[in-house]
């Protein structure tokens, strides 16, 4: 299994490196803006201008994961609201589906998986290794982003600061939300051997839960989804409130359930080789 894991990290290494470093570097702009008063005021004024009127529109606020309008003027608010929700989960969900498709269902379709399938490994080993990657890729990448972003916070004089511990808690909760969508995509790709199914289920659930999160103020059904089964809804405010066992359990239980469904399908089917 270790050799296969090594293979799975080696083959898409450029993809993994790009996703690990590039967004982290882009996100440096957030803390760096608070190192210079003119950039800081520009950032805040731009947001105020761009989002004018949004403070009175709950749906628009929810679309960007903002529960409190004042949050958009603080470093903590920017990082822990619309960066962690919805951008991190959407990016992690998409990246996980792309990566696991490359190594799983898409690889079956294009034939590269035939080489892997001929190696002396059980289907269980293959699926287990892929599951490890599906879960830890999103976690690793998100922690890389926030840690890159934290470098100026820790080393420079900023007008506002962030606490490392709470930021990591928010990172974990935000990453797990994205992982839950990515894993569902991976699981259905593995269940069917079709990469389109990975997008249909993983992307589909992400879209439904994102909509439910955005429209929860307009409809009891969406509110129920957001409160009870949505990974977005489970995010809460981990930076201030810490990790909440019930929220963590919901997301982890969903990940475990999706992985189990994928395993049942992958173990008992013919490969979808071209």
């Amino acid at each position, binding site marked *: 299994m270790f050799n296969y894991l*090594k293979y799975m990290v*080696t083959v898409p290494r450029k993809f993994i490196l790009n996703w690990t470093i590039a967004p982290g570097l882009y996100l440096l702009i957030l803390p760096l803006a608070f190192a210079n008063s003119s950039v800081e005021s520009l950032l805040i004024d731009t947001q105020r201008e761009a989002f004018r009127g949004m403070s009175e529109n709950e749906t628009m606020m929810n679309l960007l994961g903002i529960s409190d309008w004042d949050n958009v003027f603080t470093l903590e608010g920017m990082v822990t609201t619309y960066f962690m929700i919805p951008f991190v989960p959407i990016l992690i969900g998409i990246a996980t589906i792309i990566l696991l498709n490359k190594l799983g269902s898409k690889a079956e379709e294009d*034939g590269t998986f*035939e*080489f892997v399938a001929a*190696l002396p*490994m*059980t*289907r269980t080993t293959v699926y287990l290794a892929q599951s490890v990657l599906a879960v830890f890729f999103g976690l690793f990448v998100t922690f890389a982003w926030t840690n890159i972003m934290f470098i100026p916070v820790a080393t420079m004089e900023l007008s506002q600061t962030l606490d490392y511990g709470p930021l990591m808690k928010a990172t974990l909760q935000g990453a797990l939300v994205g992982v839950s969508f990515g894993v569902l995509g991976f699981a259905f790709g593995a269940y069917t051997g079709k990469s389109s199914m990975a997008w249909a289920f993983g992307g589909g659930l992400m879209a439904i839960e994102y909509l439910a999160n955005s429209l929860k103020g307009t409809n009891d059904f969406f509110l129920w989804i957001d409160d009870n089964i949505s990974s977005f809804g489970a995010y809460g405010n981990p930076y201030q409130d810490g990790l909440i066992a019930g929220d963590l359990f919901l997301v982890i239980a969903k990940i475990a359930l999706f992985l189990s469904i994928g395993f049942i399908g992958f173990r008992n089917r013919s490969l979808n080789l071209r």
Partner: protein
Amino acid sequence: MRYKNGKGVEAINIAVGNGEVKGLLGPNGAGKSTTMRSLMGFLIPSVGTLSVEGINTIEKSVEAKKIIGYLPGDPQLPQNLNSKSLFKLGADMRGQTTDYAMELAEKFELEVDQTVKELSKGNRQKVALILAVLHKPKALILDEPTSGLDPFHQRTFFEIIKEFANNGAAILLSSHIISEVEKVADSMAVLRDGSKVYDETYEMFTRQAAEQGEDIEDAFFKFYDRRES
């Protein structure tokens, strides 16, 4: 084994003895690749058993794959890895060294530092062939193994196959070209529309052809025609 479109293979019983090279022939779509993929456990048969050296390839897939070397009909390899890395991976997964792979790479005049993306079709085929045999398997399942190889390296390939057969390996290789099988096979099975329609020693096939005053190729085509009528 049936696909959703109703095509597939059925009631195929093929045995290959130790040291025997069996050619699996048939036109495109006859079921050669499906048979081979079923043998590898990639496709799960609705009925029947598949075994290599007495090991059921579905139930004990790891044990079976340790002693089987498999070459896909259209080998697709990760584009950004070089041959050396692929050989190392294949060898590591089987607890072997890459010594034999490097020896074969030299025989095939293969540049092992080039990535798969940089290789020609023929050279990619060589990489896939080496990956299939680097652990010196007891059984070889080769789907159209000479596809893309130039005549010189086809000869090298046939020498390797003969060496494996002399060492007692059971070899099943598919082709749709009778002259290719002629060079190396002891016996041949013919598939058509998912069923086995002929399974004899190559010697018997040539004798039957001679009795009818036909060359090998004509006899092979006639054999197909006869079943059609």
